[in-house]
């Protein structure tokens, strides 16, 4: 006896009221037929809801990230479902896992290949501080080679924690001044890492 097929035969009534979340409007002045706000608000709004992550996954945190990107936790809800493994198109480098000292230059190379503006998230104890691997062969935190914006604690962090980290990144991206990347302060930061 064949299994009765129930899907896609009887049309379901659509029920999307209250189920589609929209991004709130930025602060501004509104009147009849116009809306005025700051350019940086609009740019930030667009950027923060379409972050393209570059997963740099080396160990167990990478497995948690796969769960984060899959259907149950769904990174796509934050507009970040477009993962890419080419750094040149990406905005956010997510370093997940132990980075050995020999891998350090590779992380830096990937960071250098990303175009500005770029953000970095260190996921898990190893990427943030070396974690339990307090040993001669492991880099004691990726902030020794690249500047890091958000650290996610955990060993490994739950997918909720990674999502929280992504939301913190979104806050940073949304509020960033358009001049920040040209500022002296930012240049000094890059110089301290020996970048350009």
């Amino acid at each position, binding site marked *: 006896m064949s299994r009765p097929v129930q899907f896609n035969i009887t049309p379901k009534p659509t029920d999307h009221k209250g189920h589609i979340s929209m991004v709130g409007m930025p602060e501004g002045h509104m009147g009849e037929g116009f809306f005025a706000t700051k350019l940086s608000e609009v740019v930030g709004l667009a950027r923060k809801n379409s972050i393209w992550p570059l997963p740099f996954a080396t160990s167990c945190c990478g497995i948690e990230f796969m769960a984060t990107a899959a259907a149950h936790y769904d990174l796509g809800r934050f507009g970040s479902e477009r993962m890419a493994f080419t750094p040149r198109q990406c905005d956010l480098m997510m370093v997940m896992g132990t980075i050995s000292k*020999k891998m350090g230059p590779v992380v830096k190379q990937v960071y250098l290949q990303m175009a500005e503006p770029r953000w970095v998230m260190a996921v898990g104890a190893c990427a943030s501080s*070396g974690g339990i691997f*307090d*040993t*001669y*062969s492991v880099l*004691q935190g990726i902030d020794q080679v690249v500047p890091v914006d958000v650290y996610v604690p955990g060993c490994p962090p739950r997918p909720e924690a990674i999502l929280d980290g992504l939301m913190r990144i979104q806050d940073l991206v949304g509020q960033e001044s358009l001049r920040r990347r040209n500022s002296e302060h930012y240049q000094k930061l890059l110089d301290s890492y020996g970048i350009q």
Partner: protein
Amino acid sequence: MSLTNEQIQNRLIEKFGEQVYAFSEPYGMLTFEAPKDLNLKVLQFLFDDETLRFRFLTDLQAVHYPTDKGRELAVVYHLHNLVDNVRIRFKVFTDINTPDVFTATQLYATANWMERETYDFFGVNFVGHPNLKRILNVDEMDYFPMRKEFPLEDQTRIDKDDEMFGRGGSIN
């Protein structure tokens, strides 16, 4: 009749006499030593001899014994006779100030990788190795991390309380 440890030992003593010594059988595996200048001769004999036929180098590594003056570094060869399925362990000891041991790459091609690794971690200088440079650690590393005078922990880390985390222990 398969090859027994006794037969191997007798064959070696027959050939090298007093030059092979310290025979023991920890967990049934024949283990012996030779002077480091003779390591290639012994390995070649173990390889060529028609009854011994140890033609597979399973593993090669070093051990550091910091208190054993004059013979601090042991280079250990693990050999396998694939025909009779017998394994033996062969050690040579060297002074840490002149850690020169002849390379086994001419005899076993697999020694190439393992000798580089042993050099990388213990600083054993394998004389005659075609490409003796670091293989697993970063090229910039300026010490041999598995020697016991060097602490295991990363010295660039400053956020840990040494008393709480047991860092910086001594070798004794």
